[in-house]
């Protein structure tokens, strides 16, 4: 027996098709008492297993301020995720371990203007924090969400984004990489829209960003140009993980365990790590 590695069984309550290759799996623990006491912070992750196929690391994409369930949004990218997409149906059981890792610094960002910059599936971890902040709206000042994807059909959480757009206390800016006939919003990659359309003020502002590596790379350059301090830019790192417990040695960057010390880091912290992520 390896007690630490035994998962808890959860049922897939609902599957939501987000994009052609991203689905959100809404999960409920089979033991209702356990579900009720299950609590996590925005930015934390779980080890998700389709038993017999393998275990993968996914962030929880919903906020624990919305109780009774939790979401994992999964992009079809490798072997296990392909099996999840093709074989996991509503009503089936999955194994869950967690929540693991650190979380977005919700105390540090209190009383600040929040700027979320997301790309593609990178909105998943941000969504957990966005929901959390919407549910505690009075704790935060201006609230801006910049979200982009390659095409309009690659945008996740479309219904929820419509709700955000209707919410007068949120500013939502959407963009896609190339023009489309029916698309009336911005066109252009995220860093370009950030600089030319959003033009955020740095004063009292925290930026929370997540997206594909190439987007992150250029977004960090843009934020630097706009004058943001690296300690005000927060991101969440993708690394290969297995145990989630600081034991299996997979996610090490130098002496840092991404599964324990991360996955959430400020850009200032990332700069101090060996260049190996």
């Amino acid at each position: 027996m390896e007690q630490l590695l035994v998962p808890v069984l959860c049922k897939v309550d609902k599957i939501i098709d987000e994009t052609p290759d991203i689905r959100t799996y809404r999960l409920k623990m089979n033991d209702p008492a356990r579900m009720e006491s299950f609590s996590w912070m925005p930015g934390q992750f779980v080890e998700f297993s389709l038993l017999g196929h393998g275990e993968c690391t996914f962030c929880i994409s919903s906020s624990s301020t919305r109780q009774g369930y939790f979401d994992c949004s999964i992009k079809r990218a490798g072997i296990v995720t392909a099996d999840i997409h093709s074989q996991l149906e509503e009503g089936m059981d999955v194994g869950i371990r967690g929540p693991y890792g650190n979380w977005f610094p919700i105390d540090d960002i209190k009383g600040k203007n929040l700027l979320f910059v997301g790309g593609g599936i990178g909105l998943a971890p941000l969504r957990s924090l966005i929901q959390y902040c919407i549910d505690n709206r009075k704790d935060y000042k201006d609230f801006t969400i910049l979200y982009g994807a390659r095409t309009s059909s690659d945008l996740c959480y479309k219904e929820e984004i419509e709700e955000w757009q209707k919410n007068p206390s949120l500013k939502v800016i959407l963009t896609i990489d190339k023009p489309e006939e029916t698309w009336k919003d911005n066109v252009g990659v995220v860093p370009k829209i950030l600089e030319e359309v959003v033009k955020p003020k740095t004063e009292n502002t925290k930026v929370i960003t997540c997206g594909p590596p190439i987007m992150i790379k250029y977004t960090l350059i843009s934020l630097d140009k706009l004058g943001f301090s690296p300690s005000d830019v927060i991101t969440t790192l993708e690394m290969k993980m297995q145990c989630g417990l600081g034991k299996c040695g997979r996610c090490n960057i130098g002496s840092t365990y991404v599964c324990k010390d991360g996955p959430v880091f400020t850009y200032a912290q990332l700069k101090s790590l060996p260049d190996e992520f």
Partner: protein
Amino acid sequence: MNVFLVETDKTGLQKFYEEIIGKFETYAPVEKFGKYDYKRVLKLSECNPDSPIETTMSVKPLFFPKTAKIMKFVEDSSGTTVSETEEDPFAGKRVILGVKHCDARGLQVLDQVYKWDYIDTDYQKRRENTIIISARCDKAGAQCFCTSLDYDVENSDAHDIRIVNGLNGKTYIQAITEKGETLLKSFSLQSTAPDVAKDEISKHYKSFEASFRLKMNYSEVNAKLQKLFDSPEFETVSSNCISCNTCAFICPTCHCFKISDEKIKDAGVRYKSYDSCNNGYFTLMAGGHNPRPVKYRRWRQRAMHKFVYYKERFGVNLCVGCGHCAISCPVNISIFDVVNQVAKV
């Protein structure tokens, strides 16, 4: 703590071993084809607690098994059931004989990663229920360098009981921990006056230390490596490596593992088994991104994890100087040479 020290001779020691094997579930180095490995033994003639050469595999698998079952699972129309596997074969009370200094130190090093934050209770139980008795290390092997590292071999507390050959022909059995002392007392062994014995033990370690071929200045190597992440030497030192991972499997302190499922029809088992940072897929993510896509980067991780990162994180070096890896490496790479060559700037 009073020093509990027994003076005896070779015959007395044999008797002591026999008594242990008779009373406890005992493991000791057993010879096969000229090589030694820790095996369960029922009589002293099967094993050699003072094997003249290192065991091929470290003592690690008795605490961190090569493959362990995490759980079983069954699927039927009502859903999935997860059940425990059979009992842990290593959880009971047991004694291990013939553990060299390096191997025992390896367990102390492993303790650090298993006890931080999430505590691995399975590992801890195996540790708590095991009494570790040292081998008589009289002479360093060709690849040994334990005395060069960040621990004091002579005053090590990694064993519960230490056995030392005096230069005067006597053998000393010394309790190092309370667990060890309780065991010695239960055998109605009488403690001897410690003065002569201590002197003899200290002489033994002086002669032991003089027998080392390999020596390094650990603090200098550690300090230099901290600044050498970008050293081009990592490419040179790793070029012969065939990525077979033998070094990681037999290493007393390598602890990376993977989790994998085996499923036949509706039932399956989830396993935890050894893995190595030298594997190309070790950090490969779905989607194709790999932070360590080439061999020298994986070797750099191996060397730096052992000599810099673990020390920084847990205060102990992740290499104990046993030389197991150098002995078994098919292309003669030695971690001793690797770190020395990189740090030789």
